[in-house]
């Protein structure tokens, strides 16, 4: 060391250390240092445990009540944040599970064995009517295929979905999100369809009231659900002798006059007698159409796959 002090060698060594540090840093940026880091940490863990064991008791004794209180408050805050995060995640998972289970019920065999109800998934293109830009797009595309304008665009108000005649949609089919009805097909063109919302003044459907008793739900009177045109629905044809209360649920009585799965319409938010001896029932739809991006078009299909309805044994 003291024979020939060499400043150049020291500079080279410094440069080597500097370059090695940069290499380590770059390797860390590329996430290739984990195994090395674990090895280094493992090499110091015996001593770390010994030091922690020796100093742990003493540090606990020396910790002032204020520090302990701050630590506890910090832990409490952390736990509270974690709890809220878990609640949010739980609600999201519950909603996803509910949606998937409803969709599964729709897709599975339901109603009579002979008739199943299938769904055609669709995206909502626009609301409340088909925009001019989309209309022009359809007309231009149709003109290139020799189609007339009347077969390409749909008129009316509601939701415009991206499924049409090519998917065998016809007016009158119920449109749902999950198992909640948001309307029905009112007009169909080659590529798109118009959905008439349940709140539309021209909408009507056969429904049945379901009372949610403490033990289990029970079916009540049947009536006709109509849109009021102001974002709500009403149920008519319920005699005053029937039991109706705010909070009752409204389900479909049938689907296109076929007995099938019960589709959900909404909840009773007001129920009063009118002068005609009937209930005047106001229903809030179960789904806000403004928030819907994906829908399902429900339609009956013949179940001829099993062969049990073909006259077999």
């Amino acid at each position: 060391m003291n024979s020939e002090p060499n400043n150049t060698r020291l500079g080279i060594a410094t440069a080597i250390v500097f370059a090695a540090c940069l290499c380590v840093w770059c390797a860390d940026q590329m996430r290739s240092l984990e195994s090395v880091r674990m090895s280094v940490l493992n090499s110091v863990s015996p001593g770390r445990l010994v030091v922690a064991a020796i100093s742990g008791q003493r540090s606990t004794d020396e910790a002032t009540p204020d520090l302990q209180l701050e630590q506890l408050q910090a832990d409490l805050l952390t736990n509270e944040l974690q709890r809220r995060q878990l609640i949010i995640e739980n609600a999201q998972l519950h909603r996803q599970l509910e949606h998937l289970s409803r969709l599964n019920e729709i897709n599975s065999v339901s109603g009579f064995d002979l008739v199943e109800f299938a769904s055609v998934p669709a995206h909502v293109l626009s609301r409340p009517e088909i925009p001019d830009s989309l209309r022009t797009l359809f007309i231009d595309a149709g003109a290139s295929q020799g189609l007339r304008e009347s077969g390409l665009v749909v008129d009316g108000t509601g939701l415009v979905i991206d499924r049409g005649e090519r998917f065998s949609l016809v007016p009158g089919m119920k449109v749902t999100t999950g198992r909640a009805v948001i309307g029905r097909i009112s007009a169909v063109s080659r590529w798109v369809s118009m959905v008439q919302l349940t709140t539309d003044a021209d909408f009507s459907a056969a429904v049945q009231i379901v009372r949610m008793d403490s033990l289990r739900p029970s079916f009540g009177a049947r009536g006709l659900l109509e849109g009021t045109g102001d974002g709500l629905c009403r149920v008519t044809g319920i005699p005053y002798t029937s039991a109706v209360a705010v909070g009752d649920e409204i389900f479909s009585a049938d689907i296109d006059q076929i007995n099938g799965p019960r589709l959900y319409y909404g909840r009773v938010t007001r129920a009063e007698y009118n002068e005609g001896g009937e209930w005047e029932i106001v229903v809030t739809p179960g789904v806000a159409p403004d928030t819907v991006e994906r829908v399902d078009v429900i339609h009956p299909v013949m179940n001829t796959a099993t062969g049990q309805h073909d006259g077999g044994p």
Partner: protein
Amino acid sequence: MKQAAFWLMAFWFALVLEQARPDLFPAGSIFLPTACACIFWACTASGMLLSGVGLLAWLVINPLHIAAVCTLAVASGWLAGRLNRKRRWSDVRRKMQWAHPILAVLISFGGYLVPVLREGPPVAGFFIHWLSVGLSATLVLMIVSRLSEELGLRRQVDVLSGQR
């Protein structure tokens, strides 16, 4: 070889302390002064390389503080180089300034602050805590170093080359 083993153990123990009690010894407050002491103890290229090995290990555990490691290596190398220009070891020992290691540690603390300031302004207690621990460790190491010289415990041998 004995010196190399001694400094490797010192590095290991510094890592142990920082990992075991991060509340008492913030990251780098023990290790960086130890690495600095190693460089100034040897004042040679081999000392720098030996310290570099320890610094790399510390950097693997604390990858954010590359600025601290680099500034310490460069500052210590430059300051040690000034001491290394002396032709005789006795001159080196005589001319070794107490301010050099402290200055190197302070410069490395500046590099240490780079990632800390990026995450947000730290509280004043952080500066005081780190500096008090770091400078205390530096002073203790310098005192031990000088004592070992005065008591004749220091072998003036290049740890890697073996030259006296």
